[in-house]
């Protein structure tokens, strides 16, 4: 089985996010966005690649939308109402609430302002939204018998989510846009550690590493504070959702702390409505706001009032939030015209302004005059402060997420190609995860994990339940002396629990696979267990037995015992700390056994003709493979012994 990933949009570009993933036969479309930069067919993803017959209901199992931005949701009404997709669509509750607002707003702009032919109507939007199934954070939703999806918090904008999808044993995460650092009103992305085959992540800032936003906040507050302290007016042109709330929380909090009395105004319009949504959707905001909610809704701003047009020229300092963000027209432009000529006033600009807007002109250089049209010129004498807060994660955030999730593969979308390439390099070299950057309309095939179901025998299950750990010494530091001295387990370095490893997988033709315990295997095969035993008969020098005579005959029982006891004494001296047991007939250390050998032709004896000049006694040793090392040690020691006295043997060899 494989995961197949068809990129319809946002492949090596920013805009019209749309990725169709096939996992284990299930097909999911993640996001259905439009490209704001194009007016032609390139605006929408090429849906025909999904199905030549345009039978989307059968070729797709579901559509998942991550958040309400148009480059993620913009093409949805077109896809459902025009292209005719009727299957399930999943998005979070806030996205479901806010997406129609955004779509409607966009439709109006297209039709009313630009006079374009409309791609979809208001009716389309509302019909499309009726097909949407809302999902909550961390709620696991069973789309059908095999496919389950789950939403995780992504930060970025209200309601943004990352989606986890799992079919059988194959699992993946599609992030959408996300933010790994919290801001004043939204939290940081949050996800569990999951076993993933694939991670598809955005990469808007693939190479940027952003410094702390606190410095930017500080500068912003300082600029605003100094301006109002000097009696000036502050104009903050913002987009209705997101930035306005963030800055407002920042200011409201600061006002509260510093006990400032200067009024803050919100211009009427979408902002007020948006604030209402924020007030309702508290559970999607940051921790702080959630915590304080019990006492006060953070979006019930204490110092914020509604703005009245008559206040534009009212004396005294004030702060005003006005839409649209780039001063491209509307109310913010109106206020700008009035306030720009005064040095005391301050205009703050968002981080990004489209070329052609007043905002863009203000950003590029410091113009003293702005020509709106041939009749209108505005003297710009006010101060200008540029804000650059971004709700996207930076490259470090992407790396951190990838490191945390440790998926088997990563696909980067939603970014600029050169930057994505460098991020890809980093992911491959630092995290050692294969990484892909498919272009639009490319397909990436990724092998997915395959699992075989197997029966487990009772004995195997029991052995799995019982602890069975062992301690191992790291081999590079191993040296024989240490091993002997440190047979008490505490000194060993590594822990190993082998209970799973001790199972045996049996796959027979025509039968289901089984995992059995090793004891079961013997039963199944009707075989006996064989243990490998090593044997060796070693010689030791013996002096004092000479006097007792009796050299040619068998040693008496008492002789045998005394020999063993001598050996026991020697070994105990030599290997202090090793548990040597005297069992009468033989000595035992672990599995190593030694007894006196009386046979003339012992099969384990290598030197069959003992040196006649010195009296010799033979010890028959046996041990199992596990104690090989120990056995060799002991044998070499025995061979060096001279059991008559404690002097080392002068070996003539």
């Amino acid at each position, binding site marked *: 089985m494989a995961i197949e990933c068809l990129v319809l949009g946002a492949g090596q570009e920013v805009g019209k996010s749309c990725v169709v993933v096939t996992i284990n036969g299930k097909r999911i479309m993640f996001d259905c966005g439009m490209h704001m930069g194009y007016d032609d067919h390139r605006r929408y993803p090429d849906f025909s690649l999904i199905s030549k017959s345009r039978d989307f209901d059968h070729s797709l199992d579901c559509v998942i939308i991550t958040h309400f931005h148009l480059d993620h949701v913009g093409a949805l009404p077109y896809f459902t109402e025009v292209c005719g997709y009727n299957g399930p669509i999943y998005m979070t509750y806030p996205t479901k609430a806010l997406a129609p607002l955004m779509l409607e707003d966009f439709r109006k702009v297209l039709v009313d302002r630009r006079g374009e032919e409309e791609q979809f109507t208001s009716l389309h939007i509302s019909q499309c939204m009726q097909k949407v199934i809302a999902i909550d954070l961390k709620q696991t939703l069973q789309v059908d018998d095999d496919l389950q999806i789950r939403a995780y918090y992504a930060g970025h904008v209200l309601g943004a989510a990352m989606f986890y999808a799992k079919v059988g044993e194959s699992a993946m995460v599609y992030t959408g846009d996300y933010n790994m650092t919290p801001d004043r009103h939204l939290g940081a992305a949050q996800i569990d550690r999951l076993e993933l085959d694939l991670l598809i992540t955005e990469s808007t800032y693939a190479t940027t590493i952003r410094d*702390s936003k606190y410095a930017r906040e*500080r500068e912003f507050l300082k600029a605003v504070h100094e301006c109002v302290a000097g009696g000036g007016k502050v104009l903050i042109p913002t987009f209705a959702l997101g930035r306005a709330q963030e800055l407002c929380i920042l200011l409201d909090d600061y006002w509260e702390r510093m*006990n400032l009395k200067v009024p803050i105004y919100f211009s009427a319009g979408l902002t007020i409505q948006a604030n209402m949504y924020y007030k309702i959707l508290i559970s999607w905001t940051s921790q702080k706001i959630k915590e304080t909610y019990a006492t006060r809704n953070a979006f019930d701003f204490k110092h914020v009032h509604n703005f009245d047009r008559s206040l534009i020229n009212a004396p005294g300092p004030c702060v005003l939030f006005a839409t649209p963000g780039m001063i491209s027209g509307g109310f913010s432009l109106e206020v700008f015209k009035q306030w720009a000529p005064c040095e005391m006033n301050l205009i703050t600009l968002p981080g990004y302004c489209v070329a052609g807007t007043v905002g863009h002109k203000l950003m590029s250089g410091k113009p003293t005059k702005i020509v709106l049209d041939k009749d209108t010129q505005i003297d710009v004498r006010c101060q200008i402060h540029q804000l650059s807060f971004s709700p996207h994660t930076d490259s470090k955030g992407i790396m951190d997420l990838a490191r945390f999730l440790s998926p088997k593969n990563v696909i980067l979308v939603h970014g600029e190609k050169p930057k994505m390439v460098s991020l890809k390099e980093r992911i491959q070299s630092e995290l050692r995860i294969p990484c892909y950057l498919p272009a639009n309309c490319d397909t990436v095939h990724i092998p997915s994990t395959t699992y075989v179901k197997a029966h487990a025998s009772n004995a195997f299950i029991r052995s799995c339940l019982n602890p069975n750990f062992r301690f191992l010494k790291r081999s590079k530091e191993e040296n024989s002396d240490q091993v002997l001295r440190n047979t008490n387990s505490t000194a060993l370095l*590594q822990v190993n629990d082998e209970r799973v490893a001790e199972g045996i997988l049996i796959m027979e033709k025509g039968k289901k696979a089984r995992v059995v315990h090793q004891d079961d295997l013997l039963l199944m095969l009707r075989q006996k267990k064989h243990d490998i035993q090593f044997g060796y008969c070693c010689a030791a020098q013996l002096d004092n037995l000479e006097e007792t005579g009796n050299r040619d005959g068998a040693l008496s029982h008492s002789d045998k015992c005394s020999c063993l006891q001598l050996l026991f004494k020697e070994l105990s001296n030599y290997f202090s700390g090793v548990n040597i047991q005297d069992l009468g007939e033989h000595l035992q250390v672990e599995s190593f056994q030694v007894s006196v050998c009386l046979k003339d032709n012992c099969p384990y004896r290598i030197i069959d003709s003992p040196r006649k000049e010195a009296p010799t006694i033979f010890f028959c040793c046996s041990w199992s493979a596990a104690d090989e090392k120990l056995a060799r040690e002991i044998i070499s020691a025995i061979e060096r012994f001279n059991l008559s006295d404690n002097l080392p043997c002068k070996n003539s060899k």
Partner: protein
Amino acid sequence: MEHHLLHICLQSLKDNNNPPSLQALASLRSLIINPNTSDSTIYSILETLTHSLQLSTNSLTTHHHILKLLTDLASHRTHLSSQILNSIHSSSLLFTESTQIAAESLTSLASFSNSDQNKIDDQLFMSLCFAATSASARLRLLRNGERLGIGTHMLFTVFLGFTKDPYPYVRKASLDGLLGLCKSYDLFEDISVTEGCYCRAVELLQDNEHSVRSAAIRVVCEWGQMLIAAKEGNDKIAQSNQVFVQICSMVRDMSVEVRVEAFNALGKIKLVSEDILLQTISKKVLAILKEKNSHGQCTAERFEILASSYAGAFMHGLEDEFHEVRKSACNSLRIHTILYAEFARRSLSLLMDMLNDESMAVRLEALEALHHMATFDCLNVQEIHMHMFLGSLLDSCDLIRSTARKIFKLVKLPDLKLFRLSIHGLLQNLERYSKDEADVFSVLFFMGRSHGNFAAHIVKEVSQEIEPVLEGQLGLDSARVAAFLVLAISAPLSQNQNGQIIPPRLFSYAVTLLGRISCALSEVVDQDTLLAYLSQCSRSSTLGAEVEVESLLPAVDDVVLNRTKKDVNNPVEVPMLQTGNETSKVQPVTSCELEYLATSIVECQADELGEVMKSVNLILARVRDAWLLVQSRCTNAALRALRDCKRELAMLTSTSLESSGAMAFTLQYLQVMKLFAKIWEHAVWKIRSNETGGLEYLFGKLDMRLRELRYRYIGFSKEEELYVLELIALACLLRLSKVEISCSPTTMKKLSAIISHIEILNDKGSIEPSNILMDAKKTVHEIESSKAGISCSLFLITNLDDFFTLKQFSLCSRVRHINAELNVPGNDSENPLRFVSGLPVAIPLDITLYNVSSENRLWLTMRMSEESTQFVFLDLNILGGCNEVKKFTFVAPFYRTPKACSFSLWISIGMECALEDCHILNHCGGPRRDLVYLFQEKEVHLCLVRRG
């Protein structure tokens, strides 16, 4: 009822064939936990339970319930616990097939006794652990391992082994166990054991379960520290770095719990290399470090990977969504800031940014960190920080403001601009929160003292504002002006104040605000010292660099310094880091700031004493003028003049004991002269001769005052002593002159004693005795010889006015005042001391004695009514020597407690007049001579102890 219940239950339990019903067990439990259940019932329950514990027919659940009941029983009847312990111990449960039951019984064992009692066999424990098939049984065993008194080595083995368990809770329990074991040093001997455990914990940092990960962090931190401790020299730092980096890799965990744990752990690792620390506050891999590494051990790529694993660790912590994490990050950052100057500089910006945090706790923690840095003198504030830093002075939270001010007290500002900003910020704070006044003043004082030059500058700039605006009306009620004055008066105390002159009049303005300022500076300086300082500075017309004023307030600084030093909870030893080929610059951590101010107080006091003496003598000169008025029968004008003198004297303030002695003497003298003037009116001019009673009262008062004048001052020169004696002689003569009372032989006796004393004094020196003395001498002789005193004396006294002229008297020696202070701590009419009628009561007294020598015999007098006074002798030899100032606590017994609900005692300290005649007073063991009282009587309230 009880027995009935018991009966039913026991029946049910004894029925071996059927398991006991839950209901029966529940009733048993109700009996057990009821404290009123009789002992006999409890015993029979215990017996039955013990019995049924032994039965092998019981099912698992029954055992479970019985064990639970026994545990309950043991916890409610602690005296039975050992018996229950034995019964569980002896039961065969521990050796049954079911490890579940065995584990449970072990848990019960562990739950109600300490480890000594219920030691179980290591071997048994081990076998149970291995046999336990259910995870919960293992969990129980591991959690109670330590309490069961298992050997450390055995425990270690088991814990380490079970870190491989497939169940996360078991893994966590074994990690917790390992954490507990790290205190056992016997394991520590073998470094490979420590290493093994550490490595295992490092592996578990990647566990899928967050509780395991956070437990693993704790183990990595603690065992890592053991590893660090075991290493020496460069290895130590390398190891330390390794542990630090290992924990750093956890700060990006998705679980809050894990992140908090990670930052807590980061704060525990001391001695981390500077480059690693620098990297933790930058998300980008630092170029300098790459260069440094280029001749290092690992490849560039490898290094980058390594560095990126801990890059920006602290930044992430400070940016975290959860305030717990941010707080913990601030806290651990604080530990590391003071080690390296460069790191301190860079992390300062981060900490300053944290002052804008939305959570109060985090802001406070950041301020604490800044304070820590300031204490160790590595807080180098720059202009970019000032907005936030000053912002915290205006915070709406009191705690934040006061912590911020604490930092400003210690901060060292590099230039005037920042200083001006800071002063401005403090003034704003004052403006907005007037309740902070005292603290703001004290901060201004500290800042002015540490930045004398800047302070002088500022004062110069605002001098217009301070000067009286409208017709001499000082704007002194304005807190702002007061603040500038505080700044002004602090400037001369600074060392780096080079010739900047603070106009002396500012000091006199400051005197008018003495109360306010001294209240603010109470922790630094007491009011008297401050006043002396101010008055000196304001008086010296040539004030400038040559005036030695900085010697003031030295003791203060030590106090403040010591306090701040103590604040720093863990004094960090100065570590000398030698990392490889580069030597890290280590900032000296101990700060000996302000030590320069600890110069001698003596010079200053000498100056001040001279000033006081001068003023005192001026006043004394005017007394003589006043006396002339008395002699010219203008008594009222004389009294008025004397009162003026008194008022003038009150304007003077003293800081040292010596000057206060002179002043006290002068005051007493003035009072004596007032009495003389009044008596003169009666006795010599006989204007109001009809008021004999009043005169007698005046004489009594005069006697007392004169006695005090004679005995309560030491260090008189001969002239001065003679003068005092002369006054006493005069008083005697005056007494004698009044017919109605003059016959008193005591007065005669006294007069002759005085005269002989004067003669003795005069024998040694050659001072011309005054007329009055000669006269007095003659009178005494005549009276004694004629034995017909009255007529003679009458004749003599009429000429008194001609004979007596007040000499020009001036004080030149250092007179010291014998004085005492007495206090009964915590006693007032609301909080009386308790007594039992008829039994002695102990009265705790805080006593301070000034200039008392061991020759003085001091008595504590306790007066309940006029008649009954109890004396207690204060043996100064026993109370431990004599100093100029002696402070001690004395518990005085009062014996004759009356039969009353409550009463008051009047307590005072009296000194025996050594040179007076002995006359046995009617009290046994009381003083033998007259007493001069060193202290106004103090009222002590006592109240009967009530029953119940």
